[in-house]
């Protein structure tokens, strides 16, 4: 090593120029990262492949401006020098630097970092100019001319080397923007942001507030809120959000940015607008329509930009031309309402008409009204379902590319010629349950990825039952740190859209080797409980890896029919002799019955703790949509759903307990924080309108009072109340136990002290982590080091984000398909476009309604833009006339020449559903009131269905009352030591037969 010195001029903390001398050591041996290396460099990690035509050494300017081009995977053999890397770090900020880091880390990219500044022959003292050139020369010598080395500088000739059309376009688009940036000037539209030091000092002293800006979707122009973060400020009155009103005060911040705001004096505080605007229906209902002035502030600086790629649509050509002198610059409209229009310079405007285009933001100068951006990629024609789906994915930051070859190469093979087999070493190290246990799975019909199987048996001696939950052993196939693991980690979950799904794991695993199919040997992770046969108390628990063979792959309907004692054919037993079949069937039936009994016991236990029947509501609405829109067979909630879900919850709970005990600081659990009381206000108020009182002090009280709040006339009331209760809830979240105090571990909805996800590793990455933790907890030895608390917390956050994105995408895709469904129908004539709706909230200029038939929620206006209101005539038909509108707390009245009419909460009305097309955004459904009578009375053919339905529902009501007595019966059962209580069983079976148990949840275990 040779020591040299470098002299830097830095700014000291007091702002003075300081001369700093730092040592700098250079050496001869610096790994080159090339597989062609002749000098036996000690290369670790990524190595450049040898089968490229040349290596590329970009210089600082190129990387700075054209990083996006380098991000193309087609570009191989890129050598980034340390000089470039550090320059980017200093000059372009953390975000760009991180992108560079990911690029270098990503094993899929063929690029390496070369520490040229530490190489003796490449090192040049820091002066004006570049020392990248000497690095390129060094490479040339080092590789003995085996590979041509190309150095790129900002020179368009060099770009033509790439021979990539996309890169070309991108290049021109970026170059255009750069050009623009240079000749910009003019007056300032916005105030300048304050320098970072001032901001930091201001935050510390409590003068400024730091937070993430979120723009109101419905009033993107005017309203934005800053979620108040942290406890740095002593300002105690500030426990709510801070309003940022208007674009001026928002000062160039974009939705999602981390901003610093300054509070304005109290006399300038404003309230939020409360009237309905378009599409507000699905928003969380706000507590009050009166808008009290709330803390208002203005943005003084942006700490961290959180810009992502945005999908935009170009305006029609005519509009472009009217812009006159800036013919080259086009204002495009983002798909997301919350994002401002983006100014783009492009010559391809004509070609991009009617297309959805991905745009990246570059900058937002204080002189410009709109941010500048450039075109990255064209998605496709607007309005095309495929394009719209891609748009939804992109807007939710979901990146799903096909699994790469390298990933698939890691996978085991299972083909006809080469069937996959259980390896003998694995078989010996696992507990073999193939012959000792009757294992079966119950899933929806046609399910490919069977995550979970169950077993139950009476242990010899008869005193104890053994309940087993066997989960696909994904971690056996997906080793930590493998490419598949990395991919699964970045996806975090399988994405279910309305018409398709994007798997987290390659199909060979998710649908085959990990899937616990019937009749084949599979690896599993099992939890086995020994329960007391009488009291069903847990005696011992065993966790570990097992080898199973599922005997029956049942579906819910089949299992339920078996339980009901109906004569059904089990496909697995078709070919057997009668006597054998009967024997097998009896065995299976016994297992199912025992399982049901255990599940009921578990459920009763949780009910005592205050478990809520809420979470199913939202899912059920989506099922309704699915049923109606894609005309699927309706999935009916059966008791067996609950049975399976209960076992899964139980397994999750016990695994959570185990890993939390073993790793008190680094276990991944899932908690559901108790909701804030004020979120319950709309629920309480609505319930009051119908004379119910809702007690929200605890989950137990809430569950009980929701159970009571049943209107025998209208079952929808209860359903809507439950829906509102669900809206008041916060989301359940993953967290690492080390970063959360123990009292926050509680799962509010399930009423469990500890909860995690363990049972679906095929479609959730959190479960994979939990599997690894559990294995480490059981075996004590681990394959690799476990993730620390910090790392796990980051991961939990990542998974939470992705889950939210997945939910959002699912919701948006469902909405998309709803729109597609209604788009082809003539809304004036088609009967399907008229439906019954229930009022569930009132607003200043209309009300929010729920359409049970389609599971839609939406706003219904009683006042249009011209100020006319909707009057109701004697026949109940509605018409737009002039009049006034009066809002009360439980009703809204229209007063017109025809008379006065009030719409009360939970009133049934008839609405017409139409599609409101939108050029730049997603299409929306529009609800229009056509009658104040329930829809059913007008339509004879639907009337019968409606009546039949209501009858059934009424019967369910009765059953629901029976059901509420269930825990009591169970207690008696315990008290009198009745091993089997046929009367209770028959009772519940009846509910099952009805198969319209509207209140039961079907997806709890899988959420």
């Amino acid at each position, binding site marked *: 090593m040779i020591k040299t010195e470098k002299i830097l001029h830095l700014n*000291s903390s007091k702002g003075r120029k300081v001369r700093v001398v*730092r040592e700098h050591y250079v050496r001869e041996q610096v790994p080159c990262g090339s597989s062609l290396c002749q000098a036996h460099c000690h290369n670790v990690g990524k190595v450049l492949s040898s089968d490229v035509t040349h290596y590329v050494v970009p210089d600082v300017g190129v990387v700075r401006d054209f990083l996006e081009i380098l991000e193309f995977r087609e570009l191989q053999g890129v050598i980034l020098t340390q000089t470039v890397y550090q320059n980017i770090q200093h000059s372009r900020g*953390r975000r760009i630097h991180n992108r560079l880091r*990911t690029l270098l880390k990503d094993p899929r990219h063929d690029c390496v970092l070369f*520490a040229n*500044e530490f190489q003796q022959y490449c090192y040049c003292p820091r002066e004006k100019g570049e020392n990248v050139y000497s690095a390129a020369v060094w490479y040339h010598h080092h590789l003995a001319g085996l590979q041509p080395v190309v150095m790129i500088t900002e020179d368009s000739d060099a770009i033509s080397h790439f021979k990539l059309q996309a890169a070309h376009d991108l290049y021109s688009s970026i170059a255009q923007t750069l050009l623009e940036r240079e000749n910009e000037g003019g007056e300032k539209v916005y105030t300048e942001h304050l320098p970072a030091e001032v901001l930091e000092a201001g935050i510390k002293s409590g003068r400024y507030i730091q937070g993430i800006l979120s723009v109101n979707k419905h009033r993107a122009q005017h309203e934005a809120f800053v979620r108040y973060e942290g406890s740095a400020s002593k300002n105690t009155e500030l426990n709510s959000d801070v309003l940022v009103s208007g674009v001026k005060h928002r000062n160039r911040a974009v939705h999602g940015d981390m901003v610093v705001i300054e509070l304005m004096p109290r006399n300038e505080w404003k309230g939020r607008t409360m009237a309905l605007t378009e599409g507000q229906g699905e928003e969380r209902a706000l507590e009050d329509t009166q808008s009290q002035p709330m803390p208002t502030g203005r943005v003084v600086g942006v700490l961290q930009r959180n810009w992502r790629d945005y999908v935009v649509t170009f305006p029609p050509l005519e509009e472009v031309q009217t812009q006159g002198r800036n013919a080259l610059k086009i204002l495009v409209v983002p798909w997301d309402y919350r994002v401002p229009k983006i100014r783009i310079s492009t010559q391809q405007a004509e070609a991009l008409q009617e297309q959805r285009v991905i745009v990246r933001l570059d900058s937002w100068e204080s002189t410009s009204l709109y941010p500048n951006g450039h075109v990255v990629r064209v998605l496709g024609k607007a309005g095309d379902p495929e394009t719209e789906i891609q748009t939804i994915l992109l807007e939710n930051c979901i990146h799903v590319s096909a699994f790469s070859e390298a990933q698939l190469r890691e996978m085991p093979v299972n083909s006809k010629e080469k069937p996959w087999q259980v390896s003998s070493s694995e078989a010996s190290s696992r507990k073999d349950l193939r012959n000792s246990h009757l294992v079966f799975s119950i899933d929806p019909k046609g399910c490919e990825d069977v995550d979970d199987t169950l077993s139950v048996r009476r242990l010899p001696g008869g005193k104890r039952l053994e309940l087993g939950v066997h989960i696909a052993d994904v971690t056996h196939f997906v080793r930590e740190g493998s490419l598949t693991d990395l991919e699964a980690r970045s996806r975090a979950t399988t994405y279910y859209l309305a018409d398709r799904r994007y798997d987290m794991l390659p199909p060979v695993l998710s649908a085959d080797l990990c899937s616990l199919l019937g009749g084949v040997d599979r690896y599993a992770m099992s939890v086995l409980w020994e329960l007391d046969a009488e009291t069903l108390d847990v005696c011992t628990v065993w966790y570990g890896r097992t080898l199973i063979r599922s005997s029956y792959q049942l579906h819910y309907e089949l299992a339920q029919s078996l339980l009901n004692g109906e004569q059904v054919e089990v496909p697995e037993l078709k070919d057997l002799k009668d006597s054998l079949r009967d024997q097998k069937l009896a065995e299976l039936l016994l297992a199912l019955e025992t399982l049901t009994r255990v599940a009921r016991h578990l459920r009763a236990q949780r009910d005592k703790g205050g478990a809520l029947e809420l979470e199913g509501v939202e899912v059920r609405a989506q099922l309704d949509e699915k049923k109606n829109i894609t005309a699927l067979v309706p999935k009916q909630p059966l008791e067996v759903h609950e049975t399976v879900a209960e076992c899964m919850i139980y397994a999750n709970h016990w695994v959570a307990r185990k890993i939390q005990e073993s790793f008190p600081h680094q276990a991944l659990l899932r908690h559901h924080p108790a909701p804030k009381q004020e979120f319950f206000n709309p629920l309480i108020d609505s319930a009051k309108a119908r004379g119910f009182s809702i007690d929200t002090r605890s989950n137990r009280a809430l569950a009980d009072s929701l159970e009571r709040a049943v209107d025998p006339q209208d079952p929808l009331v209860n359903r809507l109340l439950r829906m509102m209760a669900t809206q008041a809830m916060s989301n359940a979240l993953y967290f690492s136990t080390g970063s959360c105090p123990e009292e926050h571990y509680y799962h509010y909805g399930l009423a469990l002290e500890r909860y995690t996800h363990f049972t679906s590793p095929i479609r959730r990455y959190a479960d994979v982590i939990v599997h690894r933790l559990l294995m480490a907890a059981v075996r004590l030895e681990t394959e690799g080091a476990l993730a620390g608390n910090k790392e796990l917390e980051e991961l939990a956050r990542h998974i939470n984000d992705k889950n939210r994105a997945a939910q959002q995408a699912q919701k948006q895709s469902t909405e998309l398909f709803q729109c597609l469904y209604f788009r082809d129908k003539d809304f004036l004539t088609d009967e399907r476009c008229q439906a019954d709706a229930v009022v569930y909230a009132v607003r200043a200029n209309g009300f929010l309604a729920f359409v049970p038939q389609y599971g839609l929620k939406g706003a219904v206006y009683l006042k249009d833009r011209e100020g006319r209101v909707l009057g109701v005539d004697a026949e109940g038909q509605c018409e737009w006339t002039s009049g006034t509108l009066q809002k009360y707390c439980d009703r809204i009245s229209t007063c017109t020449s025809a008379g006065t009419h009030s719409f009360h909460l939970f009133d049934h009305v008839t609405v017409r559903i139409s599609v409101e097309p939108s050029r730049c955004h997603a299409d929306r459904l529009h609800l229009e009131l056509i009658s104040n009578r329930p829809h059913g009375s007008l339509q004879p053919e639907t009337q019968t269905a409606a009546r039949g339905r209501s009858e059934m529902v009424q019967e369910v009501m009765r059953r629901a009352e029976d059901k509420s007595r269930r825990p009591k019966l169970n207690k008696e059962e315990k008290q009198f030591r009745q091993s089997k209580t046929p009367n209770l069983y028959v009772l519940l079976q009846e509910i099952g037969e009805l198969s319209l148990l509207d209140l039961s949840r079907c997806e709890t275990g899988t959420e």
Partner: protein
Amino acid sequence: MAITELSALLKGMAGLELLSEQGYRLDGRKAGELRKLQARMSVFAQADGSAYLEQGNTKVLAVVYGPHETRGSRAKSLHDRAVINCQFSMATFSTAERKRRPHGDRKSSEMSLHLKQTFEAAVLTQLYPRSQIDIYVKILQADGSNYSACVNAATLALVDAGIPLRDYVCACTAGFVEDTALADLCHVEESGGGTALALALLPCSGNIALVQMDSRLHQDHLDKLMEAAAKACQDLSKVLDGVVRRHLEEVSDLTKH
């Protein structure tokens, strides 16, 4: 991608990337490598012993007087061994910003005390009862690991003064970044906010003369860190030994002629 971004964010808050992914530190060294060490002995004729030492850009002058009778009050003297008196100071021009450094401020008196404790463990003080040995150390340029450089310089000065020592006293600081121990921290690394441990070792016996650490460190990592520091001290001792031998050769050459 979000994960790496987050971790980078956390790192970014801590400031510079002290250890790159390829294993280079900011100045181009690898984790276990020392800075360049240069030293000369007998730089002053008046003193009984003196040495000048450069450890990277940290430059130290050490001067030793004694053993001599205790100056001032008799009460300070010990009847069975010598008293070691250390004084540490920094030149006004030793850091990037010029700063007046009065004697007896908290930092330098703490450093003096540390030095005193270190050398009480190494010097055979019982050979000189009722006497005193003075060690004066001055930092001319501070660029991290000040304590270690002082100890190393003072060792050379003591050798130069001919005071019997149990062994060389070699000191080195080590830090801990992302599961890796860094030997011989420079100023940027020290001020980066991470852990720094100073270790003074008697290399032949492996006895520890002094170990000092102010910051927090997980217990599991302590062994690793100590090991790295000890290894660095062993390496240093070879260099110091070389300096002493070369000095002796020079001196004997001079006396020959």
